[in-house]
C-alpha cells in the first residue's frame, strides 16, 4: 500500500540523516540511499502491470479536507519510467559526486547531499502526485534545492544565473498555482464540492472559455521548465554555472517534468484548449527543434552544445505530445526517457573531459581519444544515441513522434525532420572536436579511471539495452497515453 511513500520520502530521510553522520561518511550514505531508491524504483517497474490504463500502487490519504486537497500518489505507464529514470540518474549523479569528492569544499558536503535528496523527493513526488495541488507543491519544491545547489556550489557568475532561473521558473510556477486554484474553484461551482484530485477534475471538465486561459498558464510553466524557444533565456547562464552532477539532473530529469505536466495535467484537464492551441504549441515545438539545433552547432562551449540540443530534443517531445495522437504521445514518453539517458552521460563526459583538459571550449580541445579508447568508445555510443541513429531507442522515439505528427500535420513533421540532420552535425562536431584531430600542446589524453567508468558504463549499458527493446516503454506507456488523450480525441474526430 504505502510503497510509493517510501520511494518519495526515502531520499529526503537519507538527506536529513546526512547531517547526523560524520562529514566523510555523508557522501557514501547519500549514495547508499540513492541506490536504495533505485532498487525500489526497479521493484516498482517489475511490479507494474503492462497494458492497463489507470493508476497503480495508489496511496490516498486525506490531507487538508477543508480545501479538498488529498495526499494522493500513484504511478501509471507515463510516469513509471520517468520515476525509474529519476532514480537512476540521481544514483548516477550522487555516485559521480561521491566518487569525485564533490563538492570541492568538504565542509559543505552534508548540505550538498541533503539538497540532492530533497530534490529527488520533490521530483519523484511530482511524477507521482495525483492531486493537482500536491503536484504544484512538489513542482515548486523542486526549485528550492536546485536554487541552492547552483547558487552555493556553482561556478562563476552563479548568483546571476540562479536569479535568472528562479525569476523565470517562479513566474511560471505562480501562474500555474493560480491556474490550479482557479480550476478547482470553477469546478466546485459546478459540482458543489471542492476537490483538487485529478480524477475528479477529469470527470468534470471546465467550459472551453475558462479552459483556454488556464491552459495558457500551465503551458507557460511547463514550457519554461523544459525550456522551449523563446523562453529559454535562463538556460545558457544556468548551464554554464551549474556544477556538472547537478546539471545532469537539471537537464535530464527536471526538464521532463514540464513535458510530463502536459501529459498528466494539461491534456486531460483542458482538452478543448489543447485542441485550440495545438497549432501554436506545434509552432513553438518546431521552432525549438530548429533553433536549438542551429544554436547547438554554432556554440563552442560544450555545456551549451548539450544544453541547446536539449531544447531541440524537448521540442521533439512537445511535438509528439501535441500531435494529440497516441503514437506521437507514446513516442514522446519514450523519448523523455531516451533524452534523459543520453544527456546524463553526456554531461558526465564533459566533466571527465574537463578534468583532463581544464577547458570547456571546443576550440581548445582535441585528440582526447589517443590514449583513451574506452572513453572514446563510450562517448561514441552516447554521441550516436544523441543524434538518434536508427537502431537506438532515440530513433524509435523520434520515429513514433514524427509519425504521429506526420499523420496529423504533414508540414510540421517534414520541417522538424530537418532537426535530425542538424543533430547529426552538431553531435558529431562535439565528438570530433573533443576526441579526434590533434592533441593540443600541453594536454594529456588519459583513460577513464575505474571510478569514472563505474558511473559511466552502467548508463551507457542502459542506452544499449533500451536500444534493443524500446518496446519495453512503448508498450507500457500506450494504455496510459490513450487514457490521457481520451478527452482530446472525440472533439477532434468531430472536427474532421
Amino acid at each position: 500500500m504505502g510503497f510509493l511513500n517510501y520511494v518519495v520520502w526515502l531520499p529526503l530521510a537519507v538527506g536529513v540523516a546526512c547531517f547526523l553522520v560524520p562529514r566523510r561518511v555523508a557522501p557514501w550514505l547519500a549514495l547508499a540511499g540513492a541506490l536504495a531508491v533505485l532498487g525500489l524504483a526497479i521493484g516498482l517497474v517489475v511490479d507494474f502491470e503492462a497494458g492497463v490504463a489507470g493508476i497503480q500502487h495508489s496511496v490516498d490519504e486525506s490531507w487538508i479536507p477543508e480545501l479538498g486537497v488529498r495526499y494522493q500518489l500513484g504511478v501509471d505507464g507515463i510516469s513509471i519510467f520517468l520515476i525509474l529514470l529519476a532514480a537512476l540518474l540521481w544514483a548516477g549523479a550522487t555516485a559521480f559526486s561521491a566518487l569525485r569528492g564533490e563538492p570541492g569544499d568538504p565542509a559543505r558536503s552534508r548540505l550538498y547531499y541533503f539538497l540532492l535528496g530533497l530534490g529527488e523527493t520533490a521530483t519523484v513526488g511530482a511524477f507521482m502526485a495525483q492531486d493537482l495541488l500536491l503536484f504544484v507543491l512538489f513542482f515548486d519544491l523542486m526549485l528550492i534545492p536546485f536554487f541552492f545547489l547552483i547558487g552555493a556550489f556553482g561556478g562563476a557568475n552563479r548568483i546571476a544565473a540562479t536569479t535568472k532561473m528562479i525569476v523565470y521558473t517562479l513566474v511560471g510556477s505562480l501562474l500555474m498555482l493560480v491556474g490550479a486554484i482557479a480550476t478547482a474553484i470553477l469546478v466546485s461551482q459546478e459540482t458543489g464540492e471542492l476537490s483538487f484530485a485529478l480524477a475528479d477534475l477529469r470527470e468534470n471538465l471546465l467550459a472551453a472559455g475558462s479552459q483556454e486561459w488556464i491552459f495558457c498558464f500551465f503551458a507557460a510553466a511547463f514550457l519554461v521548465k523544459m525550456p522551449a524557444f523563446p523562453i529559454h533565456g535562463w538556460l545558457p547562464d544556468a548551464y554554464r554555472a551549474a556544477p556538472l552532477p547537478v546539471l545532469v539532473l537539471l537537464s535530464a530529469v527536471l526538464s521532463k517534468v514540464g513535458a510530463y505536466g502536459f501529459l498528466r495535467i494539461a491534456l486531460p484537464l483542458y482538452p478543448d484548449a489543447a485542441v485550440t492551441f495545438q497549432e501554436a504549441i506545434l509552432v513553438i515545438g518546431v521552432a525549438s527543434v530548429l533553433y536549438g539545433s542551429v544554436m547547438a552547432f554554432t556554440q563552442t562551449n560544450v555545456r551549451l552544445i548539450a544544453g541547446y540540443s536539449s531544447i531541440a530534443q524537448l521540442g521533439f517531445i512537445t511535438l509528439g505530445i501535441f500531435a494529440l495522437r497516441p503514437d506521437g504521445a507514446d513516442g514522446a514518453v519514450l523519448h523523455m526517457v531516451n533524452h534523459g539517458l543520453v544527456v546524463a552521460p553526456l554531461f558526465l563526459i564533459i566533466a571527465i573531459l574537463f578534468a583532463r583538459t581544464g577547458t570547456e571550449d571546443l576550440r581548445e580541445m582535441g585528440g582526447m581519444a589517443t590514449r583513451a579508447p574506452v572513453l572514446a568508445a563510450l562517448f561514441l555510443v552516447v554521441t550516436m544515441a544523441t543524434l538518434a541513429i536508427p537502431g537506438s531507442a532515440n530513433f524509435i522515439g523520434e520515429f513514433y513522434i514524427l509519425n504521429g505528427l506526420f499523420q496529423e500535420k504533414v508540414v510540421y513533421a517534414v520541417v522538424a525532420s530537418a532537426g535530425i540532420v542538424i543533430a547529426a552535425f552538431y553531435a558529431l562536431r562535439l565528438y570530433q572536436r573533443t576526441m579526434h584531430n590533434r592533441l593540443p600542446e600541453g594536454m594529456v589524453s588519459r583513460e577513464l579511471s575505474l571510478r569514472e567508468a563505474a558511473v559511466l558504463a552502467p548508463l551507457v549499458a542502459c542506452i544499449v539495452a533500451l536500444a534493443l527493446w524500446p518496446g519495453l516503454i512503448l508498450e507500457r506507456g500506450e494504455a496510459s497515453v490513450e487514457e490521457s488523450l481520451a478527452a482530446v480525441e472525440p472533439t477532434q474526430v468531430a472536427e474532421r
Partner: protein
Amino acid sequence: MDASTFGWLVLAFPLAGSLLIALAWRALPGRTAGVIGTTAIGLAFAASIGMLLELLGEPAEERQIASALWQYADAAGIDIEAGILVDPLSVFMCLVVTGVSTLIHLYSTAYMASDRGYARFFSYLNFFVFSMLLLVLAGNFVFLIIGWAFVGFASYALISFWYRRNTATTAGMKAFVINVAGDVAMVIAAFLLIRDLGTVDYLEVFAGAEEAFSVNSGTIVAVCCLLLGGAFAKSAQVPLHTWLPDAMEGPTPVSALIHAATMVTAGVYLIARMFPLYELAPTAADIAAFVGLATLLIAATIALAVTDLKRIIAYSTMSQIGYMVVGVSIGAYSAGLFHLMTHAFFKALLFMAAGSVIAAMANRQNVDLMGGFRRAMPLTSALLVVGALALAAFPGTSGFFSKDEIMAFATERGGMYLIFTIGGYVGAFLTAIYAFRIGFRVVAGEPCREARELEQGHLVHAEPENPATGEAEDTDVGFPGPEHHIAERAWPMAAAMAVLGLGALFGGLVQVPGVTHVIDEFLAGTFDPSPLFHVEPSVGAEWLGLAIGAVISLAGIAVAWYGWVARRNDVTLRLIDRLPAVHRFLFNKWYFDEIQDALVYRPAIAIGQFSSAVFERYVVDGLVSGTVGVVRGAGVVVRGSQSGFVRAYALLLLGGLLALALYFLIVSS
C-alpha cells in the same frame, strides 16, 4: 537448419566478431584481431552459402521466407518486429557482400599490419559488414533504415579512422551527415506507407500497395522519390555524391569495402528491392534512371581529370553505380544486379592493387608521379591491368557481359529508353579511357624513382604526409607508419587479389547471352511478379550490343594508349593548355562541393551565428530582463513601507486592526 536460421547466422557472425575484437582488444596478440575478423566474415560467407542451398531446396514460388526474433516495438498501431526476409535477392546480395568482404579482410590482415589501430580497424570492419548484411536481410522498413544508418555510422568510423587527420575527420562527418539526410527521406517515406497501408513489413506493403495506390498516384510517386533520396545519398548519385571522393581519406581496404561490397551498392539494392513500388510509380523510376545516367556521365568526365589515384577509382565507382541505377530503374533487375556483382569483383581488385601501388609509393597517391611499375611489381601490375580491363569492358571480361546487358535491355524497351543506350555507350567510351589512364600511368612508361628502387629490392620509406594538405602525419595513433606492405611481399594480399582477379576475368561467364542464365533464373524467385522482368532482348540483339560494346571499349583503350603511352602524356598536356576552362571545370569536380557549401553549409552557419549574436542577446534575454524589471519595480514600491522603525510597524498593525474592526462593524450593522 532452415534458410532463416542461416540468415540469422549470417548476421550473428560479423556482429560477434566485431564485439569480440572490441571487448578483448587488449588481450589479442599480434594479428589475432585480423584472423578473428576474417574468420567471422568467412563464416558469414559459409552461412550465406548454407542459406543459398536451403533456398534452392525449396520450390521456386516459396523462396521468400520471413522470420522474426523478437517484437521490437508494438504500440499505438505500429508493429515493428526484429525480422529478416530471406529471398533470392537478399541471398544474392549476402553472397556478394560476404564473399568480397572476406577477401578484403584477408587483404587487410597484411596491409594494415603495422597500424597501431589494428584491432579497432577490424572491429569497425566487421561491424561495417554486419550493418550491410542487416540492410540487405531486413524484413521491414524500420530494420532497413537501421541497417542503412549503421552502414553510415560504420563508414563514418572508418573514413575518419586516422582521426588525427583533420581532412579525414571532416570527410567522415560529411559522409555521415549526407547519409543522415538520406535516412530522413526514407523515414518520411515510411510514414507515408504507414499512413496508407498501416504497416512497415515488406511483404505486407508489397501485397497491399497494388490495391492502395493507382499507377503514378501522387503518394506512391512521393514514396518512391523519397526512397530515392536515401538511395542517392548512399550510392553517391548526383547531387549527393560529394562525400564519396572525400571518403578516400580512409585506409585503402576501407575504400575497397565501401566501393565494392558494402555501402554504395545499397542504393541499387534498395531500388531493386522496392520494385513493386517503382513499377507502380514509373515517373519515379524514370527520374532515378535519368539521375543514374547523369551521374555516370559526370563522374566519368571527372575521372578523366583528377590526378589522385584513389579518387580516379572513386569517380569510376560513381559512374559504374550510375549504370546499375539505370539498370534497376528501367527494369533490367538481373542485369543491374549482375553488374553489381562483377563490379564488386573488379572494383575491389582495383582498390587492392592501388593500395599496393600506394604503399610502394610511400603513401603518395598522385598518378602523375607514378610510372613503370611493371617490372618492380609484376603481380600488382598484372592484376591492376586485369581490373582495368574488366572496368573498361574488354571483350570476354566480366564487366563486358554485365554492362552491355543493361544497354541491351534499354534498347529492347525502346522509345525514350534509347537515351540510356546511347548515354551508356558514351560513358563506356570514357570509362575505357580513364580505366587505362590508370593502367598505363602506373604500369607503363619510364619507371619512377620508387619503381627503380623497388627493382633493386628496396621499398621506399618516407615520412608519411597527408596527400591532401601535405602536412606531416601523426603516426602516434596508427597510420601505416614507415612500414608499408605490398602484394609481392605479403601472401594474404596476393591471395585476395588473385581470387578477385579470377572473378574479374571470368565472373561474367555465369550469364552469357544465349548460353547461361544463372543469375536470371535464381533471381526469378524475387522478381517473378514483375512484368518487366520477363521483357528479354533477343539473343541476336544482345550479341549485337556486345559487339558495339567491344568496339567502343577497344577504341577507348586505344585512345588511352595514344594519349599516355605513345605520346608520353604530351597530348593531355596540350589539351589542358588548349582548353584550360574545361580542365579547371572538371578538375574542380564540376564545383559540386562549392555549390553545396554555398547553398547549405554557409547559410546554416550564418543563421546560427546571427541567432547567438543578435537574437539570443536582445530578444531572449530581453524577455528575462523585462520580467526582472517588473519584479524590481514592484519591490521598490513595497520597500518604502519597511522603514525599520518598530513604532511605525506598530502603528501600521494597529491601523490594520482598526480597519478590520471598522469593516466588521459596518458589515454587521
